[in-house]
């Protein structure tokens, strides 16, 4: 009986988690990949580990700490590179390691061993709470509304910021709000795939989509779909093979990426042959 409940729990969390993770990662990922913010996002992810450590030490929800660290580090990189003239990749590298260091120090200082640490680093569906799922669900709605309402404004600013400044005085507001939302999205997905692996959830699906489309709205849709396939298949495989979920999802996504790429090249080759 107990086994059934656990199984039911795993399926529900896995299914909802896969849906919300692929929606949020698809929307935010298309933005990150198009705007070449992958390294910045890696910095945000790792810097947020500092918030997880502080959450553990002071006994509040580590995701909350991670959210604060994630958003502050994303905006901090912008501040350091634009206002303080520190090169952006250096600023990212510094905050990346600084966040990890804070996290490790505080987790070390926390009395007793923290069994959840591994789940934060590599993700684990078993430790995902319904609160995490609800937070991801809310984030999905927020992102759908935000990108739906301001689709063109966001697209045009991220494509050509200096041109956008010639007609709009909202460029900075949009830049900061979008960056903060992306940072928050990454942090909320950490419980699914872990600090180390979560970024691939954002970068692989848009790259699968960009193999066959360059239309931004289609990249978002295909990213969500590819993300869902990878995540859902990852769960199933990890369940039957008894291997960690986060790693399985990423592994599946990379296989999908390689297969799509090869399939696309092959069909193009066939079409050329017919002409």
């Amino acid at each position: 009986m107990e086994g059934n409940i656990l199984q039911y729990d795993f399926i529900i969390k896995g299914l909802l988690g896969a849906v919300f993770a692929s929606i949020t990662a698809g929307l935010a990922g298309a933005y990150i990949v198009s705007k070449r913010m992958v390294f910045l996002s890696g910095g945000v992810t790792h810097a947020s580990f500092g918030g997880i450590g502080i959450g553990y030490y002071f006994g509040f929800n580590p995701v909350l700490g991670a959210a604060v660290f994630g958003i502050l580090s994303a905006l901090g990189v912008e501040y350091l590179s634009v206002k303080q003239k520190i090169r952006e990749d250096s600023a990212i590298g510094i905050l990346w390691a600084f966040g990890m260091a804070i996290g490790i120090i505080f987790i070390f200082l926390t009395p007793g061993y923290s069994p959840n640490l591994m789940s934060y680093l590599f993700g684990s569906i078993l430790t995902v709470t319904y609160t995490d799922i609800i937070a991801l669900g809310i984030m999905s709605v927020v992102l759908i509304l935000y990108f739906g309402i301001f689709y063109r404004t966001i697209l045009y600013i991220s494509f050509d910021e200096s041109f956008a400044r010639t007609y709009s005085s909202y460029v900075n507001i949009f830049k900061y709000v979008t960056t903060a939302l992306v940072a928050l999205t990454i942090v909320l997905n950490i419980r699914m795939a872990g600090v180390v692996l979560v970024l691939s959830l954002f970068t692989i699906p848009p790259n699968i989509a960009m193999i066959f489309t360059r239309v931004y709205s289609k990249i978002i849709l295909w990213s969500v779909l590819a993300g869902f396939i990878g995540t859902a298949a990852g769960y199933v495989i990890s369940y039957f093979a008894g291997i960690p979920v986060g790693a399985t999802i990423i592994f599946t996504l990379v296989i999908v990426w390689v297969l799509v790429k090869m399939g696309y090249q092959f069909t193009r080759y066939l079409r050329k042959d017919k002409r």
Partner: protein
Amino acid sequence: MANLLEMRSLTASYDNNIVLEDIDFTVNENDFIGVIGPNGGGKTTLLKVILGLIKPAKGRIEFNSSLINGNSIGYLPQISTGDAYYPVTVTDVILSGMMIRKKILSRMSAADKKRTREIIEELGLSGMEQSSLTELSGGQLQRVFLGRAIIGNPRLLLLDEPGNFVDSTFEKDFYGKLKDLNSRMAILMVSHDIGMISSHVKSYACVNRKLHYHSSSEISNEQLLAYGCPIQLITHGEVPHTVLKSHGDGR
């Protein structure tokens, strides 16, 4: 003739380095002004002041009510600042020029999309509607950005070194196109290539920290005849210059 914009004793600077000093300048409807001058003389800065990207340090700039807040100004930047690898289509880039007429929450209408198709055809880009920018040649890319600059039907068009990318096959069309556009909008064209623009513009603004305005009447037809060759160089008296006879073999 109505003034589109007027600069009075305007000074503009970057990090306390004065780039433009004490400038008086007026752009009227139907003007076609060639903005010439040395590199670093402030040509692009002049455009940025008009676009509102740089605030004047001193003096003022006043717009005709139809150009308030720099809106309704079309702009073709020198080097596109957009990322050519960005996943965006030709249609999307040109359509983005409509943003000069849009409020933050307004949507693109069917008419806007129809206008985009017209511009694409007008600029010889048919068949490339869904192409990404990496698939285009330099000249095609330039036309896409020209399309973005003119789709909103601005009353003032700013072109920064448009000659840089225009391919020779499109060059004649390009200046013909500008002549057409000039019948419904004033044009301010920055270029260091005077030869290229001398036969197209109606007047000149020489910018080198200061701005001097020359009406086209200063360069009369007789002067052109006296040279006996197309004018490739315009200087200000004190600069020594030599005019060579044409080769006589048509070159």
